[in-house]
């Protein structure tokens, strides 16, 4: 299994006029699961394909520990990959699919079967080893693909949106399974997704990408609570953009002053970035500053969409037991409970 860090140094890649990767740097530590998160076209899949050797970068270097593997062909990189589309070989049985990488490494048949059996047991498909891919459900096929990618003990496990073709329930189960396997085998993994929930749920660190660059890489908590840029703040989780007036290090919104986290000393109109859970909504007939537009029950909490007097829409997340009066049309007082806010 992997014993060395994966390093991408100043990788650039263009597709015609499009800059898929622009001086992209990344380091994935041993045993870590790093997710690359970003909107379509941000370059996350290209980065993964460069690591796999399936895409050739225009410049920059890929290193695995001290070794420069920039020019190493894909089949010699020893990296297991799980693709978005079910990529099982339709002419091979489940067992043969899992053992494929071992066959390529000239492992004898008995050892191949033994290892494939172990992996299939790990993914809970040991009774399906003689079946063919078309006889399996989507979730089962991706489990087999995962077993195939892990069977030859790759130095890095690469996951290219492996859950996006699955339905919600299977997706949720399989993502936990990926994490469980990655932790138990100690495999270093790079996981590409456009689904922030997926990335935040199972990753040690999440790298948010935009326009071929890494905007921020941090732990899920840190990314959510301390986004480094407006793009990260907007992309990770739900964010309200509330108009206000900035006066250097403070900003005035909804009639109160707050410290600015990312102060640039700007003076004038601005937008404050506030998470829904940092907003309180209380039903008040007399001193109201907003009206409830919709209320969505989510279980323990409810999402309340309010419209302020100046027409700004604000989303708040309130405990469901405190939201019974917050029905559409109710006059409410919206307040911000945070001490510090980001401004755009």
């Amino acid at each position, binding site marked *: 299994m992997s014993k060395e860090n994966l390093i991408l140094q100043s990788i650039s890649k263009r597709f015609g006029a499009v800059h898929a990767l622009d001086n992209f740097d990344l380091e994935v530590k041993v045993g870590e699961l790093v997710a690359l998160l970003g909107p379509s076209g941000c370059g996350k899949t290209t980065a993964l394909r460069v690591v*796999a*050797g*399936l895409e050739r970068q225009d410049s920059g270097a890929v290193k695995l520990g001290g070794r420069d593997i920039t020019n190493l*062909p*894909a*089949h*010699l*990189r*020893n*990296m*297991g*990959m799980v*693709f978005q*589309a*079910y*990529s*099982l*070989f*339709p*002419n*091979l*049985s489940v067992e043969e699919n899992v053992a*494929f*990488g071992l066959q*390529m*490494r000239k492992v004898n048949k008995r050892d191949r079967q033994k290892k494939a059996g172990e992996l299939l047991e790990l993914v809970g498909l040991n009774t399906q080893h003689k079946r*063919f*891919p*078309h*006889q399996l459900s989507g979730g089962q*096929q991706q489990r087999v*693909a995962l077993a*195939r*990618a892990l069977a*030859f003990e790759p130095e890095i496990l*690469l996951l290219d949106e492996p859950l996006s073709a699955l339905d919600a329930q299977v997706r949720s189960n399989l993502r936990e399974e990926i994490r469980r396997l990655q932790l138990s085998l100690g495999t270093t993994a790079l996981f590409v997704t456009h689904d922030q929930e997926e990335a935040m749920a199972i990753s040690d660190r999440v790298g948010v990408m935009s326009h071929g660059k890494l905007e921020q890489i941090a732990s899920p908590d840190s990314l959510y609570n301390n986004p480094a840029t407006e793009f990260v703040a907007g992309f990770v989780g739900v964010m309200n953009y509330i108009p206000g007036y900035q006066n250097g290090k403070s900003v005035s919104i909804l009639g109160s002053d707050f410290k600015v986290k990312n102060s640039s000393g700007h003076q004038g109109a601005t937008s404050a970035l506030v998470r829904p859970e940092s907003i309180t909504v209380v039903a008040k007939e007399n001193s109201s500053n907003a009206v409830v537009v919709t209320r969505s029950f989510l279980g323990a909490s409810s999402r309340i969409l309010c419209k302020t007097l100046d027409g700004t829409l604000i989303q708040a997340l309130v405990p469901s037991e405190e939201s019974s009066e917050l029905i559409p049309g109710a006059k409410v007082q919206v307040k911000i409970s945070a001490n510090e806010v980001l401004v755009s």
Partner: protein
Amino acid sequence: MKLGKLNLPLIITLLLFGAFVVIPMGSAFEYSIRRGLEGGYGLQNYLWAVREEDFSYYLIRSTWLSAVTVLITLVILVPTLTWIHLSNSKLRELIDGLSLLPLVIPVVAFAVGAQISFPEFIQSSVMELPFLYFILALPYAYRALDIGLKAIPLKTLSEAARSAGASWLRAIVIVILPVIRSAVTATIALTFALSIGEFTMTVLLHWDTFPTWVTYVAQDNLLGAIAISMIALLVPFVLISLVALLTPEKEIKESN
């Protein structure tokens, strides 16, 4: 099977098949078992054919040349088409068009071209024929493989194979070829059938193969020549069936 309105196309297809394939074949067979002037039917034309000393020589020669043509076709076309499909190259349309040229260029032009461009050592060997047969079979072989490759998720499969440790060659041989097995079998069938029956180019280049020998024999014994042709029809059929049987039958269905 329901007999009704819906089966009309099937019935028409079967009738057309009967009119254009079964009737001529049946007529040829009927002709081949005639006893000639004596009248009646018998197998003496077939017995005469297999006793002819050149029969096996030319049959083996043509079979061998056709097998080499099939090999050349697969070795050249499978990697080329795989590359074309994977690269999404703009050259694809050009190559598509070029592959049709053998249908419109007269065979005599190829024969003259071969005489002019092939080196002397190739021109002096019968092995020049497979290369020319390959060109004649190209429009059919190209299309058969093209359809097979279009029907599979080629990029994902080849990348999955490569990331699991397979070189390009192994990815093609172990993964791609078995997945497009029916297209490969069709390519082999079309190329083999066209090669083993090729006459014009062979005559123009002054080589003797099974079809030219049959024409020669027909000058003296027409019924015998027809019997030989009937036997020759069976050869590609048997060989193609063997190819289909020897390729391991596994349940190949595209994942969705």
